């Protein structure tokens, strides 16, 4: 398994936020995690990224133990709900930021950034500042900035939460295209049932700090806890004639 998490726990003061959580994920796959706010999903992602320290349990990526490694050493990128573009840098500067940190020659950075701008369908926007972009464009820049560093693992925390329906759909497609193209392994956290089903190769449900990963989508659909069945029943009840 590429990502292996075993018995991971974390509490703040007396609140147990992540509770003996285990999961595993193959390379180049996306695990989507469905969870309401407050279920501990943000803390889980921060633990994996190394932004919080676990009380117990282990995280292994490609067989390598992550304990004690700094965020930079892990090569795991965590994307926030907000796009968090650096306000003092252009689109180009934002996308190339991670490469610049690695002190890659400027000409190489330019080449890679140009290619990324094309793939993100942001041609002609490269020299704009973040405040001149629309919500969807900003989210794409944020994405490109993460993917271009070729992370071992990409963690997404409700990335499309603030977008309108149409933009959201386009972003979901773009995300699938790009992760396939760059061979990205990712965890995708969302509270949207449909998005969870659409985005994940595997799918899990997080509640009160524990995670259940389903065998397949069928299994997920059948579990009453996921809310899929009540959703189906609702729509069906509308179709059935009422006498």
């Amino acid at each position, binding site marked *: 398994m590429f990502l292996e998490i075993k018995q991971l726990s974390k509490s703040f003061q007396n609140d147990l936020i992540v509770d003996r959580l285990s999961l595993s994920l193959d390379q180049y796959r996306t695990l989507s995690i469905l969870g309401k706010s407050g279920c501990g999903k943000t803390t889980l992602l921060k633990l994996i*990224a*190394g*932004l919080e320290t676990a009380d117990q349990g282990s995280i292994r990526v490609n067989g390598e133990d992550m304990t004690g490694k*700094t*965020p*930079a050493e*892990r*090569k*795991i*990128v*965590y994307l*926030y709900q*907000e796009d*968090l573009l*650096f*306000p*003092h840098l252009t689109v180009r500067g934002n996308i190339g*930021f*991670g490469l*610049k*940190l*690695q002190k890659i020659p400027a000409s190489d950075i330019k080449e890679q950034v140009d290619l990324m701008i094309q793939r993100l369908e942001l041609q002609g926007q490269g020299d704009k500042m973040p405040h001149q972009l629309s919500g969807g464009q900003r989210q794409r820049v944020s994405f490109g*900035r*993460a993917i271009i*560093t070729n992370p071992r693992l990409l963690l997404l925390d409700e990335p499309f939460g603030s977008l309108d329906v149409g933009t959201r759909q386009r972003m979901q497609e773009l995300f699938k295209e790009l992760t396939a193209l760059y061979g990205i392994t990712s965890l995708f956290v969302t509270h949207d049932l449909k998005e969870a089903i659409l985005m994940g190769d595997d799918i899990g449900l997080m509640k009160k700090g524990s995670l259940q990963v389903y065998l397949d989508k069928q299994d997920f659909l059948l579990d009453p806890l996921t809310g899929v069945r009540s959703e189906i029943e609702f729509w069906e009840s509308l179709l059935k004639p009422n006498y």
Partner: protein
Amino acid sequence: MNKLKYLALLVLGLGILFPFTYLVLLSFSGEWFFPEVLPGYFGLKNWKEILNSESGMGLSFISSLGISLLVATLGTGTGFIWSKSIAYHSQKETWLVLAYFPYMLSPVVLAACLNFFFLKSGLSGTWQGVVLGQYLVAFPYSVIFFQAFWNHRTRQFEQLVLTLGGSSRQAFVQVILPLAKGMILVCFFQTFLISWFEYGLTALVGVGKVQTLTVKVFLYIKEANFYYGAIACCFLVWPPVLLLYLNKRFVYNRLV
């Protein structure tokens, strides 16, 4: 109704501009005896005298400027860096309340109670002592000021740089400093003005040997030399007005 408003506005505008104009006019005046409404002499005499004589006005201006620049640089620099330790501390609120103690206390009383230490260390009567004394006021101000900067969002930016493969140093230089630039500038001028406007602590620690402009004004008031006093006041007032012209936020302070 509208007429009343215009009248109020006019009075307000004249009221605000009056002190500035009055100071300038007074600095050019002479032989202004009671009960005359206008001075008997109006010209460059006072300014010529003060610039030629050994009044030390030039020196006062230079030492005020030097001391204030130093206090502002030290206060803002250290305040910015160390305010982070407090902002991200789990007992943040307790530390902050403690920071308000020296900030709310009258600087001159603080200086008076510390005078023993200033005397013992030989800092009394030196510009270094005055800088240290004013720094003790400017530093807590700066720490409190920057609490607003170290918020959730700044923290997220820092973490983002870390997960993108950057070091803390890179995060600081390439993201934190550019983000904080505006606030650093405002804090710099605020602490500059705290020092520039300070009188009591400066007079007490400086014991007459460090004559900043405020000390000069007080001396001229005591001597009843109002024409020279007005010149010293002009030196004190016009630099902040210039800052205002550059950016209003440099002069308007708001804590809490």
